[in-house]
């Protein structure tokens, strides 16, 4: 299968830099060639949630975001999921309708009474 033509920023890209004129096109292609591709960037972004990225990679990431609002959104989504996931336990009663049996509650209360 022939490889798709090199095109990091098709027409309509809402990122800061897109191929809106000659110099932007040159800049977009340059950045696209010298920063990780999006498929690799999302893996790096996931790793950055667990250990800090080296300075050079943090700079490349910022530059990549100039041509790719989707990777920037992806990082925002990772933080969004983390923020909400951390609160999940306190909202677990809203996440399902699984009932707690009366016997279970009574057993817990009994265990607490015998803890005296």
């Amino acid at each position: 299968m022939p490889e798709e033509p090199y095109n990091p920023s098709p027409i309509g890209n809402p990122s800061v830099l897109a191929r809106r004129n000659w110099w932007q096109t040159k800049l977009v292609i340059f950045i696209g060639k010298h920063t990780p591709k999006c498929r690799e960037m999302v893996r790096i972004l996931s790793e950055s949630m667990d250990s800090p990225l080296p300075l050079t990679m943090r700079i490349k990431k910022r530059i990549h975001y100039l041509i790719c609002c989707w990777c920037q959104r992806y990082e925002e989504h990772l933080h969004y999921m983390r923020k909400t996931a951390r609160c999940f336990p306190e909202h677990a009663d809203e996440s399902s309708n699984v009932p707690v049996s009366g016997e279970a509650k009574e057993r817990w209360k009994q265990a607490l009474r015998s803890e005296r």
Partner: protein
Amino acid sequence: MTQDKVQLAAQRWVDDHGECLYRYALTRVRKPEVAEDMVQETFLAAVRGYEKFGGRSSERSWLCGILKNKIVDHFRKLGRETSFTDMEFFADECSEKFASTGFWNHDEGPKEWKPEPDEVMHRSEFWQTMSDCLSKLPQKVRDVFTMREMDDVPSKEICSILSISDSNLWVMLHRARMALRECLEINWFEQSTGKT
């Protein structure tokens, strides 16, 4: 607080927070009898350690914190008995999302997520959607993801608890995040106009 008052408070915890704790425990361990035991141990540990609760957080957060530790202990024990590496899941890593050049396919790229986290946290439908999306992840991947993101266990500690390598952990977390993000986007954020 006297022992009698602690006892009285503890009886109230069962009614006020029992369901929340049980449903969280069940989400994590999936076996009703294990979840019930874990909640009971949580209440007992809370009574024993009540003096340490200075009211800095809500009662529910404090109880959830104790339960999280019980869950981590449970997985620590399980990690010694089970292989937690699951590399079969999501082998192509959402390949249809990317062009062969490695850049996002524009129509498939991440959309903007509205509303903000502080707002969705007050909507029970959001938590139901998150629970449904989590349940679609393969068991081991879900266990690793929830331990990292819900229980806030450092990645090094997860590797040690579950006896897995750093690189396996990162791959599993990456795939879980990608799948959960995709699921939330389709089932919550793209529908959210109808839910606002």
